[in-house]
């Protein structure tokens, strides 16, 4: 074979880049609408009374979470997989017609599922379980998409040239296995068409309706084992996969410590799953499970900080790059938010803290400093790194990128600070008693007091959305306005100079 660098085929990566951006805009826009609905309830009927059923808070809320989790984040994961996978395994998608075909089927089937989800959630067809709202027909389609994703991962691994799996691949494998296991067990349900035929009836009621296999406390336990770990294998594991690839590539620095990455990978795998119980503190779940959830949440700081510190130390001696490159800024602030969020989570999982924090906006704030600051920043950074290479064009505007960074950072800070104050204020007011031992506040007092914080949160979210639109515009202009380079841009980043 000639001594020339491999050429990679980014067709599928590009397709998923597109959905990352579009579904990101949709999900974040709905989020901003929801935020303003809480501050100004009139926004619930923004399209008039006639459409209020479809624009009110409760109908839109699952659309927001699912669009951001399964739309934006998952597309980002797929897109980076179809980019990173080839490069670290040293094999091109073009070498296998089967894998290329699978990749395309993966994308189109994913789009079909997205369309089905949008229709069903607007119609109010939902199982009510958070991040698992889909009824059984969609669940089956999701499983098919996921199996194709798995075939793509293991297929590419099967024909690899580089025998040793790079750290990012470990995390992609874990993402595939983790979500597969969690999704299957949490969505165990019996379609009512089966139930009625067992009773000798047929054709009664909605064909897509189903009943959960688990009831009450068990259902809650399985759901939060899923819910918590969907965060693990959707918002942590694959995002760590990205940063292990993109930060060294972009900065030209080698990973600081292999041993630290080993410790944090296997530590994360073992510990994360135990921590789901912290969603159920003071519930009817047995006490020992709650305590396990608390303890393991605190232990979880170790592997989480292990990865984050490994990333920060990778920049050792090269900190001037953080000042010079907005792309490095995104990744370094992303790691920092990851550390921050994985410290905040365990604090909230301590029982006495959770007694105040649970059911309040502090939890919402925690989710968003992780998702906006860590997941969002890292996915955008990954796409910014990929764009010049997959389109063979330099990034359209570095100054737009820098402006976006600061606008979004301000947005995230406004978001989580306002939610902290809102959450703790409300948590304290709920439990306040007067001198005679009566409740000091009626529930509505604890709602109206939040108005200023809800408004600030809305502004924070809006800033983040504006930044995301700048990102979309920047990528769009990169695709269309810049001249095509003759060769794929090699190791040194076009931003680095």
């Amino acid at each position, binding site marked *: 074979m000639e001594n020339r660098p491999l050429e990679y085929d980014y067709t599928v990566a590009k397709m998923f880049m597109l959905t990352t951006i579009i579904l990101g805009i949709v999900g974040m826009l709905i989020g901003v609408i929801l935020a303003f609905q809480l501050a100004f309830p009139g926004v619930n009927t923004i399209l008039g009374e006639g459409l209020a059923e479809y624009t009110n808070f409760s109908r839109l809320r699952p659309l927001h979470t699912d669009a951001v989790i399964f739309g934006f984040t998952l597309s980002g994961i797929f897109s980076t997989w179809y980019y990173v996978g080839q490069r670290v395994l040293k094999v091109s998608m073009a070498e296998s017609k089967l894998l290329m075909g699978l990749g395309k089927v993966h994308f189109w089937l994913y789009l079909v599922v997205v369309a089905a989800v949008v229709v069903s959630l607007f119609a109010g067809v939902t199982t009510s379980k958070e991040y698992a709202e889909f009824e059984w027909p969609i669940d089956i389609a999701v499983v098919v998409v996921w199996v194709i994703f798995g075939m793509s991962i293991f297929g590419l691994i099967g024909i690899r040239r580089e025998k040793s799996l790079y750290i990012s691949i470990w995390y992609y494998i874990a993402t595939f296995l983790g979500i597969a296991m969690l999704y299957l067990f949490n969505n165990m349900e019996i379609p009512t068409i089966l139930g009625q035929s067992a*009773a000798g009836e047929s054709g009664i009621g909605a064909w897509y309706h189903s009943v959960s296999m688990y*009831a009450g406390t068990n259902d809650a336990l399985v759901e939060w084992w899923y819910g918590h770990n969907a965060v693990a294998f959707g918002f942590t594991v694959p995002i760590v996969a990205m940063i292990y690839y993109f930060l060294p590539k972009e900065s030209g620095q080698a990973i600081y410590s292999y041993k630290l990455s080993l410790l944090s990978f296997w530590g994360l795998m073992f510990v994360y799953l135990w921590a789901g119980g912290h969603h159920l503190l003071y519930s009817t779940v047995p006490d020992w499970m709650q305590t396990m959830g608390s303890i393991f949440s605190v232990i979880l700081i170790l592997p989480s900080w292990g990865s984050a510190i490994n990333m920060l130390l990778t920049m050792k001696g090269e900190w001037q790059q953080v000042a010079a490159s907005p792309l490095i800024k995104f990744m370094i602030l992303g790691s920092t938010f990851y550390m921050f969020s994985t410290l905040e989570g365990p604090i909230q999982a301590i029982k006495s803290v959770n007694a105040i924090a649970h059911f309040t*906006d502090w939890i919402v704030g925690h989710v968003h400093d992780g998702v906006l600051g860590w997941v969002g920043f890292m996915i955008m950074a990954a796409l910014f790194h990929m764009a010049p290479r997959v389109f063979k064009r330099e990034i359209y505007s570095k100054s737009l990128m820098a402006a976006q960074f600061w606008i979004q950072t301000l947005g995230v800070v406004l978001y989580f600070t306002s939610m902290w104050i809102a959450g703790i204020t409300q948590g304290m007011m709920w439990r306040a008693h007067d001198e005679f031992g009566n409740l000091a506040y009626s529930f509505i007092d604890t709602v109206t007091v939040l108005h200023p914080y809800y408004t600030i949160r809305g502004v924070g979210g809006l800033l983040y959305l504006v930044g995301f639109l700048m990102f979309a515009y920047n990528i769009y202009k990169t695709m269309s306005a810049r001249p095509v380079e003759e060769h794929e841009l090699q190791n040194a980043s076009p931003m680095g100079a």
Partner: protein
Amino acid sequence: MFHWLEKHPFFFAVGVFLAISFAGLVEILPNFAQAARPVIGTAPYSTLELAGRHVYIKNSCNACHSQLVRPFKSETDRYGHYSLSGEYAYDRPFLWGSKRTGPDLMRVGNYRTTDWHENHMKNPASVVPGSIMPAYRWMFTNSADIDTAYAEQLTVAQFFSVPYNEPVPMKDGSSKVVKMGKSIADAKAIALEEAKVIAEDMKDQDVKDAVARGEIPEIVAIIAYLNSLK
């Protein structure tokens, strides 16, 4: 060992799978049967209540309202007795929620009335000044899906032995039989009887007329469900 694993993807994947499945086995399985038993006083949902529960789910009421009273004085003062595991034995899915933008509804049937719910759903701020809850006016015109509720009853009776048409022990020593129709027509007739009781306490003339015609608007079903939460 790790270097070897990193060159052998299959064994690597097996290793990851073992590491992640451990916690679920230890934490979830041991208590499974125990947690599924109902406490005395907990009865299955009637057809109309179940249809109302579907309306509750359809509109994601659980996005803003919890159904879980924690064992703190401030919560038992506000909402009533703290939740017991067995009270949820017939809840498929569970509806504990994760956020209280509005108050807990675990025992809302103890302190709110049909009349209150009717006004509240039409215009929340009219009964709770300052409320940020949106109005749910479409519930007054949409029809409740009794068919699906009945199909669900058949399913849970078949697969999970939910005791319909059987006496269920109540707290005062008596027993209660929750009826499930023998056919869909029978189930609808039973639901309509229940709906008439609710509609009697309501003021909306359109809803009253609809029930008199034999239709069941969503609002009637969801009020039946909310009243059953005790």
